């Protein structure tokens, strides 16, 4: 990467950070909403939840909420990129002598920073409600790495969808679609408590891979499945996001290049 590319990426990352400083409310909502979910599921519904094989429900829930927080990130990325595309800002940026790829790289860097902050907030929230990592620093860091990898995949998906639709208001559809992906997973409840077909969907849901891997690496209670996905949770938590990036990445790059049509 040339010096210009680095400078341009830094400039565009700085622009996104300034947005958050200028308009803190939407960012605060993205940081606080997962906490609300933790309180809702951990305390309101948690009493009725039974973790298969025993274990505290909040210990079970928090890795699921970490992954959900990363999943929600797709909305942040989508909104930012779609707004620029719809308002003509993307075209203005393309008419400047900006290094190739810097606009996307700046977005990805800013959203990566957002993910780090969001995850830190959630980890603190978890610690406050009694969740603990039990398996040591190394595995805990690995879990954080897997969560950020999931967010990276969501950045790529968000950019692709935004360049495809160029309609910031469509984020509402995305917000709705995120829920079935989130709930039809092992994030909130164990798949074996679901009807057979739905349990299978939940077990193979890419989100479940990250959730299961995090439970393993944090030493939290899992859902006790002994199927393929349960036995290879960490490998799948690496493979799924990489597969998503491998598909959505080239599509996003192609969308970007096709803006000149």
């Amino acid at each position, binding site marked *: 990467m040339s010096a210009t590319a680095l*400078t341009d990426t830094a400039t565009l990352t700085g622009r996104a950070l300034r947005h958050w400083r200028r308009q803190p409310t939407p960012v605060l909502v993205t940081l606080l909403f997962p906490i609300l979910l933790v309180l809702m599921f951990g305390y309101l519904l948690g009493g009725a939840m039974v973790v298969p094989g025993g274990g505290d429900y909040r210990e079970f829930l928090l890795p699921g909420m970490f992954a959900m927080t990363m999943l929600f990130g797709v909305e942040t990325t989508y909104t930012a990129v779609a707004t620029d595309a719809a308002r003509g800002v993307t075209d203005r940026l393309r008419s400047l002598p900006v290094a190739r790829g810097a606009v996307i790289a700046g977005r990805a860097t800013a959203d990566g920073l957002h993910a780090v902050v969001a995850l830190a907030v959630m980890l603190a929230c978890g610690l406050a409600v009694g969740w603990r990592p039990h398996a040591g620093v190394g595995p805990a860091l690995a879990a954080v790495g897997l969560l950020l990898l999931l967010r990276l995949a969501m950045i790529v998906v968000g950019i692709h969808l935004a360049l495809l639709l160029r309609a910031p208001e469509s984020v509402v559809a995305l917000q709705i679609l995120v829920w079935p992906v989130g709930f039809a997973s092992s994030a909130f409840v164990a798949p074996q408590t679901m009807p057979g077909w739905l349990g299978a969907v939940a077990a193979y849901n890419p989100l479940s891979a990250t959730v299961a891997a995090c439970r393993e690496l944090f030493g939290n209670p899992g859902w006790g499945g002994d199927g393929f996905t349960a036995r290879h949770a960490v490998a799948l938590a690496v493979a799924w996001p990489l597969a998503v990036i491998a598909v959505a990445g080239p599509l996003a790059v192609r969308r970007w290049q096709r803006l000149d049509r």
Partner: protein
Amino acid sequence: MPAPIITTRDLRKRYADTHALAGLDLTVPAGVVCAVLGPNGAGKSTLVRVLATLTRPDAGDARVAGHDVRAEPRQVRARIGLLGQHTAVDEVLGGRENLLLFGRLHHLSPTRARARADELLARFDLTDVADRPAGTYSGGTRRRLDLAAALVADPPVLFLDEPTTGLDPRARTGVHDAVRALADAGTTVLLTTQYLEEADRLADTVVVVDHGRVVAEGTPERLRGTLGADRVEVLLDHAGDLAAATDAIGAATGATPRVDPDALRVGVPAADRVGTLGAVLAALTAAGVTAVDVTLRRPTLDEVFLHLTADRAAVAR
């Protein structure tokens, strides 16, 4: 004649079933204001997008400030400013932050970018609102910031795509004054417009585009010339006077008058300008015909425009 700074040769661009550009040839000398005039869908915006490296043409060549738009887009981008059809500033950031952002992306040093931002804020009367989010500006103010952002790198070539569409007359005048000032300072300006008076007022040279092709070009004066000389137009009071007036004017000027019976108008070319006017007035008085109004005027660009794009209108009908 200065060397051309914008040239296109046989530029073509097709979208689905429309030819946005159908072999467009254009030459703009350095330092002039060139107005690209045409109806909606004539290809004006596509032309600007191609020249500003935003849209890749299907075929043909385009060079801007010495560089090919396809082969060397970065070099072109470093030498142009673009004001798109819709205002495109960052609405969350303030005016100053916008100008700093675009200055930095033009690779000005932080110090230089800051100085340039202050300079442009003052020049476009934006200092008072510099730190408010641009989204809170009025349409005209936002457009001024948009224009300031296009000028951050002091580009030798400026593209303005319908710069005053949607602005109130006052804001429009502001943009016109800014464009004139830039042109006086030597910037080459290519602007698209649907407003003939805008082209008339700002442009050194006018290019009329229709169906993705140049259908006429020249100075506003010369384009008027394509419709013939000045005209004397007589507006009558009674339809009953039409025949007498036509005969009298025809005899006095030796030309065949054009008669619009519905509007009660009779017109002839005024080869001798005021002389013709006097002859027409005398002939009308002698024939005992009362005129409501008599004018001596040049054809407007509107008439030129309607004349040149008449085929299209006929097809649309």
